């Protein structure tokens, strides 16, 4: 996956777990929490979705890496580089 595809994968997950939020206008460098109504349960959902979709295990100590779109991409891209975007 390239950077754009990784971003899209995160967007897809966010759309799923926050179906009532407008995910299309998310700014990459601002924390997700400031732009959406996300609580700790939502972050848990992101972790579950990453496991389900890509078999990626995010340990609790790495949860902070998911704070913004930019940091998500930075953290996930090396883990997803050999993956195809799920169709």
């Amino acid at each position, binding site marked *: 996956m390239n950077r754009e595809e990784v971003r899209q994968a995160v967007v897809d997950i966010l759309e799923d777990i926050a179906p009532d939020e407008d995910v299309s206008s998310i700014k990459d460098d601002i924390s997700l929490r400031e732009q959406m109504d996300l*609580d700790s*349960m939502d972050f848990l*959902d992101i972790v*579950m979705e990453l496991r*389900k979709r890509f*078999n990626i295990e995010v340990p609790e100590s790495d949860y902070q890496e998911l704070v913004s779109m930019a940091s998500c991409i930075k953290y996930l891209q090396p883990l997803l580089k050999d993956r195809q975007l799920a169709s």
Partner: protein
Amino acid sequence: MKRDWLKGANSAYDVVVIGSGLAGMTAANMLAKLGHSVLLAEHHYNMGGLATWFKRKGGHILDISLHGFPSGMVKTFRKYWTKEMADSVIRLKGIRFDNPQFKLITTFDKVDFTNILQERFGIVKEVIDDFFETARNMNFYDELKMTTRELFESFFPGRKDVWRFLMEPITYANGSTLDDPALSYGIVFSNFMDKGVFTYQGGTDELIKKMKKELIKNGVDIRTHCLVEKIHIEGKNVKGVKINGKDIECRSVLSNSNILSTIHKLAGDENFSSEFIKEVKKVRLNDSSCQVYIGIKKGEKIDNVGDLLFTSVAEEYDTEKILDKQVTSRTFSFYYPEMRPGLDRFAIVSSTNARFKDWANLSEEEYKIEKEKLIKSTLDALEKYVPDIRQKADYFEAATPKTFKRYTLAPTGTSFGTKFEGLKISRDLPKQINGLYHSGSVGIIMSGWLGAANYGVIVANEVDKFMRSLKNKIQEMAPTSV
């Protein structure tokens, strides 16, 4: 011939969930959606655990634990269940207090509480804001030493009236008292203050019916009348369960049975380290409840006197008095026709906190008499608010700690799991035995509809992680074995 409630069940599942309380059902639903094969075993004929109801002749439907939950439940329904369930959540706006210290009505949210604390109790705005801020930011790790009493003492020294206003509803909502960790107060209080108190339109029966449908849709094998008698453990690994005398294999078990029953009865102490069991023995169960159910005659109406009414004749808030069999404090829940649209019926449920030991050792005769007394004193108290209640109602029944024990199998009929220390034990279970998990009312903060359901999700996440690690291991081994 006795019916075989396990007829057609598989001989093995990925996960067996023991108990269909809100935690068990929510976890089962998540795990099935994540692709695991799930058996949900419930000993009772109904699902829901404490989230339950009963129907009686004359068209009465009575809810047990639908007095109110925080707005967070909307999101929980939306994400882990269905939008339809989320859309059925409605707000309760008339929360009343009536006690020797004050009488007032509130919408039970931060804005209204701030006004009341300022105008009625004369507290300075900065102190109120600071209190809300402190409650909201209670940190799981560092606030443990402070009790709720100390929290109140530091913000509202000597103001027993304020303490009562802030504490009494939470004592009903999670069984916590002034001597429990302030954090167990802060989390639940803040959850409610966020947007107020909510309920499920359609009633508990509607909700559980929809949940059952959703579980079936997602492939959960639901089995009622199925008592899990034993969790089979070999070495440090879960191997299966025994249900109604029959063995079923599984790699992991998520027990929604009480944490102490899970360890002592289902798993067996011999499977845990002695240090762990030593900690388990320190876990205190929460107290239980009594309820009186009052069904209003068909065609009769009662005036709107509020949705939730916290009444007390005790001079001050007092934990011992709240638990005493000589009841001085009661919470009345009023159910108006909006609750179950189309039925046009009214009902009232009175709840009091209670101790198991006060009810456990009565003879059958005494028990009956005591229940009658409870109904009578409840109606006496209710007459103050609904004067002609004895004419308007035609159905009366009482539940005691023994009743709660019988239906949920929870030791001493506990309404809200355990005191705070139970949470660590629940969390540490899988460190003792691979594949063994617990979820459900525990540690005060994981109780109530919202706490239980969300804890179900948290633990389902861990079970999923565990099951996937097993599957990955098998995959890694596969190439070498050909």
